[in-house]
């Protein structure tokens, strides 16, 4: 998902030995609160690893929103109608807004936005693998809305109950907007599939073929290869396992594909009467690891574009700071 790299990182190391009776008491109190389903606020005591894990997860999520503006932003100037251009602008702008809420949520854990951006720009921090795929046609924009945002909703709704309250609150707002994003994507594809030309229908099918498997990878590696999941679950940061969410997404999407009139590119996709779920084929995890490891189709371009925007904007940020310093001096003198 947007924070799938959490599954791919080494653990921070074991819980450090508790030093004092006071700390042990705090830890016990924290554990009790988590067990009771309480929310943790920024001012509350929390174990270091809980803080670090959350910080990493929320900042990865924020970076995904910001890098995620690029593949769709790629089509703003080419959107085919003014209505679609307006919708796309609003959607990509929302993603920037999600980035802002999330950076703000992460800042409550003690890291500045600039520090988080430095980690992104240096390649140290990760973002979702899905944004390293190219948007080659207009149908990719609709497909991202339908499948990528659909997968994101599936993952993010449970995070609205995350034990860390500032993150949970940000996610409630984000999920509301994501559902609009998914609907507009589906609606855009439906318009082409129901009333479009054969060339448009082929464009939609091609986009679905290219995005389907990367979308299934968004949920992260299978549960038995996701070593950090158990701790995340224990802390109430992660609520539902990767495989459960992936299955839920496939089950919901198959029917939507049928209504749309597209096929999903998986010969093994079939209804399983016994499990009451859709069985699907084997995911090519070597591709996932390649993309997460920096060798996807657009990793270099995406990061380079973020770095370029940041570097080209440096003089603007400096000017704004210089102006506000001058203003402060003037006010002080007055």
């Amino acid at each position, binding site marked *: 998902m947007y924070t799938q790299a959490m599954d791919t990182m080494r653990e921070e190391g074991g819980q450090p030995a508790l030093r004092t009776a006071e700390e042990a008491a705090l830890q016990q109190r924290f554990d009790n609160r988590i067990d009771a389903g309480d929310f943790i606020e920024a001012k509350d005591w929390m174990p270091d690893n809980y803080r670090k894990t959350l910080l990493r997860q929320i900042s990865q999520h924020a970076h995904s929103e910001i890098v995620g503006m690029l593949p769709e932003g790629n089509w703003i100037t080419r959107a085919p109608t*003014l209505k679609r251009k307006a919708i796309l602008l609003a959607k990509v*702008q929302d993603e920037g807004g999600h980035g802002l809420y999330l950076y703000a949520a992460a800042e409550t854990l003690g890291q500045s936005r600039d520090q988080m951006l430095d980690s992104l720009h240096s390649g140290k921090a990760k973002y979702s693998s899905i944004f390293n795929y190219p948007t080659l046609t*207009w149908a990719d924009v609709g497909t991202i809305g339908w499948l990528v945002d659909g997968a994101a909703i599936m993952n993010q709704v449970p995070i609205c109950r995350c034990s860390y309250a500032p993150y949970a609150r940000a996610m409630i707002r984000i999920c509301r907007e994501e559902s609009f994003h998914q609907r507009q994507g589906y609606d855009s594809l439906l318009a*082409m599939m129901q009333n479009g030309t054969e060339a448009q229908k082929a464009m939609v099918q091609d986009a679905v073929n290219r995005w389907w498997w990367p979308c299934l990878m968004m949920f992260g590696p299978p549960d038995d290869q996701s070593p950090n999941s158990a701790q995340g679950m224990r802390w109430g940061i992660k609520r539902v396992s990767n495989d459960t969410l992936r299955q839920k997404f496939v089950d919901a999407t198959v029917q939507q594909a049928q209504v749309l009139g597209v096929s999903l590119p998986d010969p093994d996709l079939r209804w399983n009467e016994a499990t009451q779920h859709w069985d699907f084929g084997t995911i090519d995890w070597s591709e996932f690891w390649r993309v997460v490891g920096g060798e996807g189709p657009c990793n270099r371009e995406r990061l380079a574009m973020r770095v370029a925007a940041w570097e080209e904007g440096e003089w603007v940020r400096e000017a704004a700071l210089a102006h506000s310093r001058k203003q402060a001096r003037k006010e002080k003198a007055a």
Partner: protein
Amino acid sequence: MQASIQIPATPELDYLLRLGDTCLISGQRLGEWCGHGPILEEDIALSNMALDLIGQSRALLTLAGQKSGKGFDEDQLAFLRDEGAYRNPTLAELPRGDFAFTILRNLVLSTWLKLIWERLRDSRDAELAAIAGKALKEARYHQQHAADWAVRLGDGTEESRRRCEAALAQIAPYLPELFEDDTVDAAAEASGLGPAWSSLREPWLAEMGEVLGEAGLALPESTKFRSTGKVGRHSEHMGYLLAEMQYLQRAYPGGAW
């Protein structure tokens, strides 16, 4: 490939297209910033303004389509005209440039648009007056945003000031086109459709002078050059902008979007 539509040449239609295309082409240029702004907040602000401008262009092009007598809709007008049938002043189509250029062009155009929207609230055309009422609120915000940044950049550092001066020097030759009348203005004024553009000049200079004064900047002397976008003779930049903007409508004739 989808063929171009032909627009009847009437002063009323030209007046509406000049305004509608200014919004459309400015919105197109501002949309280029999405994902590339210097600060996340500004990325969002510029995209938001692009969105407002596209919304304004939709209302105006719909109205122009109704008045064309040919039943054109907003998308036919936005995507299927030949370059010479676009009526925006050339300033709107110049490449987005750096942040200083974008801010100062926004200041110029949002101040100009705000003034014209104020006047158009009294248009004899009720539809246009209603569009103006809504657009005015947006233009006021755009002007305020651009003015705040013009002051920050003009006052900020040596570099930001130098970039602002360079941007103003680049913008200045395209300003007269915003304030010189022709038969379209005369007809609009006579019919009560809207003000002659020349009448915007004084209040525009006053408002610009106030902001630029605070920013420690000034408009350069005007030049003898005259841009001619509003009569359909554009800069070399326009062809590329339209090729990109029109591509899908042209490449997929009969498509549904």
